[in-house]
């Protein structure tokens, strides 16, 4: 054990300078008192299986943990297991159809009961329940069975060879929940278990003491956490809501909070805040892409509920590929980057901008703005302005677009710019912005969520955790479209449906060779972007967050939850 600790310490020293610094801050649990975290999108639930929102996933990552996480370089790190199973160590079978996880001995839930393989098996059953509409179902793609071999061993068997068997139980989107707590919450009853969804029992460094929906979470250190010296903080206040500006100010200028997530602010604004010298903005590039999603189904309010924005009603003009392509050609992505992100962004035409092996380098056609080309394309497709009102039409259908996004200064600037460009090619745009907590809230009862998509075009950013885009790309298969029957859950926001795409996703799932996988992933990426213009990527965004200068141990991670190593955070100096 001693040797192992020493070795781990050595590895940490070599790999990460800040972590090495952390070694000098050993001490008893809870020594550093209070930690204040602010997320300007307020968490509405702490169960990642019922919400696609990043804010919900990340707040939950303080409490519940997966078997392994991705670190800041994209490499896999064991959390609840001793080692990540691979073909080399025998954890993954030679034929790639099964993976066997061995839980670390002696792990306890925060209520003191032992963590067993039954909990892991239950987690899989919970998400894969056919009545449940699990938000992370794509993580369990291809899973045939999950079975407990003994108290600490779990075997996941796939229906076909699975070259990337790290979908289930890896990363912040697929944490382990306690079987005893969620036993009564299977299937359609899942959203009704308020106590469990708002205060899950976990193995993570902190325990929820008070959860107020869309407001604030109070947490205390987990007495049963596996490392007796962690976490350094005794209590955590996780404040949600407000806006990015206020969050940035509270960390960078006033110092009321220690950590602010995702400061999506204009570059000059962040720089002027940082001049106060109280905190530091940190940034890293990942796979976060700000994109326009084209609705392939008709969101018209004249349609009845249940038909509106579902595959039953194709979109009157966005189902025409020429229109989607022209809309993309009219956009000057360089200018968007300059206005919105500065150094923290770069123009892209790819849904999967990284890691390098999966990036489609050929796909650069959208980078140059071409207003005249867009006009010619629309003319050619029969969209002409015959009644002289400045808006093109065809067969009585006018190109009028409702363009929605969340309330955020940079996004409203983007909206204004894009509206102007679309105006130049004869497309009228109506703008709408919706409070971020509602837009990303995933509430099946609200008409304003991004999944519901009651608009023609919407803009937001999304990414995938881990380094493999398979789960991300498989979200665009026909069956994952949000619809009333699935409580409007699902990640195929555009309702894209192409049997060839589904077949290629299946092929990706059966290919192990890295070169071949790259080729298929790039082809899938191209099908969604440059071939069909279903998704119109705008900017590859670096993540910018900020931490107080007195908060140590922060390693910004774009491959998993930003709070992935909150157990290692500590206070610098004595000014607590």
């Amino acid at each position, binding site marked *: 054990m001693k040797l192992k600790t020493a070795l781990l310490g050595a590895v940490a020293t070599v790999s990460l300078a800040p972590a090495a610094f952390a070694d000098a801050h050993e001490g008893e649990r809870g020594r550093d008192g209070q930690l204040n975290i602010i997320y300007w999108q307020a968490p509405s639930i702490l169960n990642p299986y019922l919400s696609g929102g990043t804010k919900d996933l990340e707040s939950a990552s303080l409490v519940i943990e997966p078997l392994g996480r991705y670190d800041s370089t994209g490499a896999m790190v064991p959390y609840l297991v001793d080692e990540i199973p691979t073909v080399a160590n025998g954890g993954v079978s030679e034929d790639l159809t099964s993976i066997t996880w061995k839980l670390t001995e002696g792990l306890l839930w925060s209520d003191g009961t032992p963590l067993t393989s039954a909990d892991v098996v239950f987690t899989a059953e919970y998400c894969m329940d056919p009545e449940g509409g699990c938000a992370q179902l794509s993580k369990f793609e291809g899973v045939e069975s999950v079975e407990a071999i003994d108290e600490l061993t779990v075997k996941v068997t796939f229906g076909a060879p699975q070259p990337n068997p790290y979908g289930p139980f890896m990363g912040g989107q697929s944490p382990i929940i306690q079987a005893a707590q969620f036993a009564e919450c299977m299937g359609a009853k899942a959203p009704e278990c308020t106590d469990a969804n708002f205060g899950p029992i976990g193995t993570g460094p902190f325990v929820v003491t008070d959860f107020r929906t869309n407001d604030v979470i109070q947490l205390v250190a987990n007495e049963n956490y596996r490392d007796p010296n962690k976490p350094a903080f005794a209590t955590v206040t996780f404040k949600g809501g407000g806006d990015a*500006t206020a969050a940035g100010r509270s960390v960078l200028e006033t110092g009321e909070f220690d950590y602010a997530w995702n400061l999506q602010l204009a570059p000059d604004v962040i720089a002027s805040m940082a001049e106060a010298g109280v905190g530091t903005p940190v940034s890293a590039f990942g796979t976060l892409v700000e994109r326009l999603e084209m609705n392939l189904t008709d969101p018209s309010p004249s349609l009845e509920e249940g038909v509106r924005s579902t595959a039953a009603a194709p979109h009157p003009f966005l189902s025409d590929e020429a229109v989607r392509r022209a809309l993309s050609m009219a956009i000057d992505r360089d200018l968007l980057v300059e206005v919105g992100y500065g150094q923290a962004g770069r123009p892209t035409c790819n849904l999967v901008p990284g890691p390098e092996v999966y990036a489609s380098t050929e796909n650069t056609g959208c980078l140059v703005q071409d207003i005249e080309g867009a006009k010619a394309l629309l003319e050619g497709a029969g969209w002409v302005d015959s009644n002289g009102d400045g808006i093109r039409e065809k067969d009585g259908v006018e190109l009028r677009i409702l363009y929605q996004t969340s309330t955020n200064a940079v996004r409203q600037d983007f909206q*204004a710019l894009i509206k102007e460009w679309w105006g130049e090619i004869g497309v009228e745009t109506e703008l709408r912005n919706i409070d971020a907590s509602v837009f990303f809230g995933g509430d099946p009862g609200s008409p304003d969520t991004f999944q519901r998509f009651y608009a023609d075009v919407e803009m937001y950013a999304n990414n995938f955790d881990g380094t493999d885009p398979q789960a991300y790309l498989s979200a665009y298969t026909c069956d994952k479209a949000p619809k009333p029957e699935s409580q409007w859950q699902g990640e195929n926001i555009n309702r894209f449906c192409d049997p060839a795409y589904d077949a290629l996703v299946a092929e990706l799932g059966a290919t192990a060779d890295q070169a071949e996988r790259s080729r298929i992933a790039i082809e899938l990426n191209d099908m969604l972007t440059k071939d069909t213009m279903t998704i119109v990527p705008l900017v590859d965004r670096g993540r910018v967050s900020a931490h107080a200068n007195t908060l140590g141990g922060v390693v910004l991670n774009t491959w998993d939850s930003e709070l992935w190593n909150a157990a290692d955070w500590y206070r610098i100096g004595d000014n607590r």
Partner: protein
Amino acid sequence: MTDTTMTATAVEKPRNKWWDVWAQFRTHKGAVAGLAFLVFITLFVTVGPVLWDVDPGKLNIRNKDVRPIYMVIFDGDAKVSWGNPMGTDNLGRDIMANIMAGGRVSLAVGWTAMILAVFIGTLIGVFAGYFKRLDGLLMRFTDLVLALPLLPLLLVMMLLFRDPLRATFGPENGIFILIVTGIGITSWMQTARIVRGDVMALKEREFVLAARSIGTPARRMITRHLLPNVMSPIMVSATLGLATAIITESALSFLGLGFPSDFPTWGKILFDSVDRMTAFPERVIWPGLAISLTVLAVNYIGDGLRDALDPRIRGH
């Protein structure tokens, strides 16, 4: 002899009542200043765009972050241009044109919501005060509406009626109707209470008794005898209502609700500028000043009108 008698008769000529009101109003310096400012700001937002012919939504990204022209006095190197006397925002939109366009919306919302609120308030107040049978019912209804919080109510209205109104009247008019109705139906209660009280007092006066004794019907009684006599409290509450409506609209826009993001109002311009408040203070000062001064001006006018319309004060 005859001459002097002639002059005396000429002086007896009756003066117009409104002339007296104006004479009294003029003695209130604040009210006159307020009126002058209201006329100015109204002209600024209505005639202004005709003279200053710049599209408020026109982006000119190469000409962004221009400072107002007076910055030259403090800083010779400041980026200024006579083409944009109040400067431009971070996307190069002209701030002066935006304040004009925004003011038109804010004032239009203010006036329309105020007229709606005063109309409803007077109607309910007069009926409650004049017809004893309706009194209890209408006043309890007033209490009920008083207890409704405005912002959550507007949020619910937004959710329920936004799509149908947008389909019928278009995005901007739909939201305009929604906001005006929202403010209108939640701010008539004070007017109703004041009017009811005055009507009840007037009802017992001798001239009403006299009118009733010659068989004046209720409709005539209200329009001929009661309404003219409660005109002064109505006008005062109307000016206060205008101020409240402008502030409520600004608050809604400031919260990011209400009008679409490309549709400027004073509150919206404030909201968009808060991020860069320290670097470009003028972007919050101008719309903020416009809101505050308009509301202050209207309050002063209300104050002056109250004095001017009260015959007891006017007599002195």
